[in-house]
């Protein structure tokens, strides 16, 4: 730093035709550095007291005044550009006159609005849009705190705002819960907001094994529903919420029944959502996998017989797949979703559209000049998933055939039923053979390795 000052001092001395020794410029330069720092230090104080974060010329002026130095800074200094003559060109008066005028300073005006009305931030254009999940955390906790007071019989002071009333109705519409359960519920929610992993795991274990959560189940689903809506972009929070849902499904001591119909849309939104992005600690694909497993588990354990729902869900996924505007994330998610339903839906939904889908992915993948590389990779991942899901379909088929051979040897009665089923499948095979040959002609030999790729765990719940 002091080297710069050294040159400056030398230049100034030269212009005044004073000869200064090199050693003395060194001393002058170091002193200058000290003076300037102390002036800026005082200017910073002035800035601080004006509650600004930007140092301005007036602060330097104040600093001069503190140091009792007569400043040469003109009051109009703000409007005159600093004149530097580096290229020895004489500055013309014309240049200064012809310069565009500074904007005329506008007089300050005062505007008053409500930032909060009894603790609630009104959604008016003057206030920022609340999107930050951090804020909502506290908000939610507060509301839970308030509503818990109602349940426990204590009063709310003052007249409740509209928002509070909504809460009251939501909870009072269900049966009352005991104080112990209230504490448990609070604890579960607290752990969701806390950062400790161990606590979270212990809570997940509790949700998966304890029968006592049955009465508060509906509140927990309320809570999860609200948070899935709020945390659309926060993958880590969604991951924990999804884990909570999965532990509900795993829990054999509680009955989900109708509530499972409320869980379904949550999982589907998570799968189709295009806004989720992977973080350092959590990959998007892992999250999708968890969602798909939760979905398949839900169908295996609870909604097994319900083919109507299955058809409706696969239709939702199909509409996403065929939509030309949907992003690769939602394509990936919906492919996984279909694969997690069962083989039947793979056959019904994916196989007929295989050509369109492959074209969609391959086009993105093959275009080397594509400006967006991440798209290319996403396309590749989608394609990989597509092929491996079809692969798993055929793999199961071949496995079944092997099994059939073995069963013929045993010729047990038990397997006769199975044989009937397999015969049905043979017919299906004939239908799909066309599709298969189509894929082969389309992709050639490069397709084969994908067939038995290790990514088959996607459908392991089916096998």
């Amino acid at each position, binding site marked *: 730093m002091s080297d710069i000052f050294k040159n400056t001092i030398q230049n100034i001395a030269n212009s005044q035709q004073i000869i200064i020794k090199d050693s003395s410029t060194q001393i002058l330069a170091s002193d200058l550095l*000290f003076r300037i720092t102390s002036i800026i230090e005082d200017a910073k*104080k002035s800035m601080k007291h004006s509650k*600004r974060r930007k140092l301005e010329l007036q602060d330097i002026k104040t600093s001069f005044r503190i140091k009792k130095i007569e400043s040469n800074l003109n009051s109009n200094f703000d409007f005159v550009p600093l004149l530097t003559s580096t290229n020895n060109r004489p500055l013309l008066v014309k240049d200064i006159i012809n310069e565009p005028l500074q904007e005329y300073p*506008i007089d300050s005006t005062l505007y*008053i609005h409500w930032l*909060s009305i009894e*603790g609630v931030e009104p959604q008016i254009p003057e206030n920022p849009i609340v999107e930050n999940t951090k804020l909502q955390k506290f908000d939610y906790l507060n509301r839970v705190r308030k509503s818990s007071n109602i349940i426990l019989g204590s009063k*709310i*002071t003052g007249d409740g705002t509209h928002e509070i009333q909504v809460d009251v109705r939501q909870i009072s519409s269900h049966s009352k819960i005991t104080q112990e359960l209230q504490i448990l519920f609070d604890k579960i929610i607290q752990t969701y907001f806390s950062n400790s992993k161990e606590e979270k795991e212990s809570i997940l274990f509790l949700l998966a094994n304890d029968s006592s959560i049955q009465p508060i189940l509906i509140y927990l689903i309320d809570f999860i529903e609200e948070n899935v809506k709020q945390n659309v972009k926060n993958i880590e929070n969604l991951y924990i919420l999804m884990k909570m849902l999965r532990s509900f499904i795993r829990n054999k001591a509680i009955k989900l029944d109708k509530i499972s119909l409320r869980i379904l849309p949550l999982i589907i939104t998570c799968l189709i959502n295009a806004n989720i992005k992977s973080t350092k600690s959590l990959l998007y694909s892992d999250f999708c996998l968890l969602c798909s497993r939760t979905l398949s588990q839900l169908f295996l354990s609870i909604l097994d017989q319900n083919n109507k729902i299955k058809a409706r869900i696969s239709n939702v996924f199909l509409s996403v797949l065929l939509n030309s505007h949907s992003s690769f994330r939602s394509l990936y998610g919906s492919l996984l979703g279909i694969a997690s339903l069962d083989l039947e839906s793979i056959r019904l939904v994916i196989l007929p559209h295989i050509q369109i889908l492959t074209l969609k992915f391959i086009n993105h993948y093959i275009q080397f000049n594509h400006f967006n590389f991440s798209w290319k990779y996403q396309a590749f991942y989608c394609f990989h998933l597509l092929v491996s899901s079809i692969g798993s379909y055929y793999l199961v088929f071949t496995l079944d055939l092997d099994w059939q051979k073995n069963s013929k040897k045993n010729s047990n009665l038990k397997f006769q039923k199975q044989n009937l089923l397999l015969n049905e499948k043979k017919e299906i095979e004939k239908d799909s053979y066309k599709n298969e040959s189509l894929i082969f002609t389309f992709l050639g030999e490069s397709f084969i390795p994908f067939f038995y790729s290790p990514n088959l765990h996607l459908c392991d719940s089916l096998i």
Partner: protein
Amino acid sequence: MTLRINKAIWEYLRHNGYRQTEKHFLSEAQIEDHTKELLLNQDTDIIDYILFSKNSEASPETYEKSYLELKNWILSSLEIFQAELFILLYPIFVHCYLDLIRKDHIKEAQQFFENNNYDHMAFHSEELAILKSIQNTRHIMENSLARNFEKYKFNIKLSSYSFELFVAFLQDKNFKLLLGIVNQFINIRVVDVKELSSGRQSKNDIEQPTAIITGEIQKDIDRLNSVPVQWGLLENCIQDQVAEMKIQQKFEEEQKKLMQLKRRKRKIQKPTIPKQENRIKNSTILFPRLTQKLEESIKEELVQAEELSQQNLPSICLFTFFHSEGKINCSEVSAESRYVVAGFSDSTIRLVVSCSQDGTARLWSLDTKSNLAIYKGHNYPIWDVQFSPLGYHFVTASYDQSAMLWVTERVFPIRVFSGHLSDVDCVRFHPNVHYIATGSSDKTVRLWETNTANCVRIFCSPTGHRGGITSLAFSPDGRILASGSEDGSIILWDIGTGKIIRKMHQHESTVSSLDFSVLDGNILASGSLDNSVKIWDANMARLLPDSSLFNFTSDFHSNEKSQQAVLLLKSFPTKNTPVMNIGFSRRNILHATGYFQTNK
């Protein structure tokens, strides 16, 4: 000490064989035979240091060498002691650097600074920037920060075990140099482990403590803080009268209800007002009484004030100044919400005492909109001014490291409060007028007695503020002092004991203003330059058991952050308006002012 020096001189004379001089010295210093023995028995360490230090210190390399060795030793020590011992490193770094400059090893000093300043960047970046600019001995004399380092000792609390470790290390390696610095510039107080951990709020509190300079030795601070302070309100003050009126009102309402229900037989007893503790009976400060009319109107408004609590958050009214970025300096809304006052940088006050950088305070009349009086006393800019809650007195805080008390009738100050080591940035009256709190850039808060101008409390802690104090607020019951800092932290201090109650660190930028809600004091509001207003539960902060107790009662809140989350009731972000000032009106509506920032 003289004994030791005498011994050193005597030893030196004997060592070099100056027999004659020795004789003269012994007779002149009046050292007799029995004292000779006493002298000889003393440990030789310090004497050696005094005798030979000058020769050994000559080489500038030893500074860096010994500093690095100390650093390595601290880093390799056990984790429990690391945090404690690390505090020592910064003072030693500073004094090594200043010593080198003092001895004219400028280049070596700069080299030393460049090599090692990263160790302390995290906590002391501002001080380092100033230190870096110091180039020779004269600069040390001129710079106030360096002068403070020279003049005053660092206060450090160490547990007895880590202190022993440290001393053993210094003696082991024969670090005379470091021993000298520690001896001269650091005041180490050996304390119990319990006391050491009481400053921290929980086990998980990993905040690195720092060394503090206040100008006093730690022992003196502790003694000062143990003197009792009358923090109670004045007897029969407005607050009490209002409380009485409120109870009366409730009583009358209930009676009316009973009348309507026609149950005259049942009578309800009139509730008595709970007696407040710690009231000051005979005020020693004289001030003129408020006019009847004014007092009535204040009371009326206070009675109507809404009671705020956890469930009942305040309404916030935001006053935004447009087109004022860089022009506006300060602003305030009057307690009865009639006037908004703003100070502009072109020395105009738009629509009251004002303070100015020209070292004067001016009294303005709201009725005639004109300047009534000019008060000159400070030679340097005045940063803050405040009227006492009862009017008449006002106090100013200035760049010249002092605060002054004035009365409106006289143009000279009647009390001067000096003791801070840096600028006094903000100043507040205690609700009972008997005390004044000042916050300074030296990161400490002091409480002064108005009458005697003596300092009665120094609020500082190794885990205290990391930046200068920018805002202060007293709770309405006079028991708690809240302070906000440049680093965005807010600390609640107990005036009775002078200790930290709670530290809240959620703001990202300077806390520009703090205020407690009127009458009940349940809510603490803070405005910050990070474009937000935050509402804290002051009652909860008071009630939550601090330190170790907390961990046993429930592991639920063991996390420091979740504790803060409980305290933080709500945060209100503004669109792009740094909040300059906030204040509760007498009806408990929160007024916030700020200027709109344009993004460029």
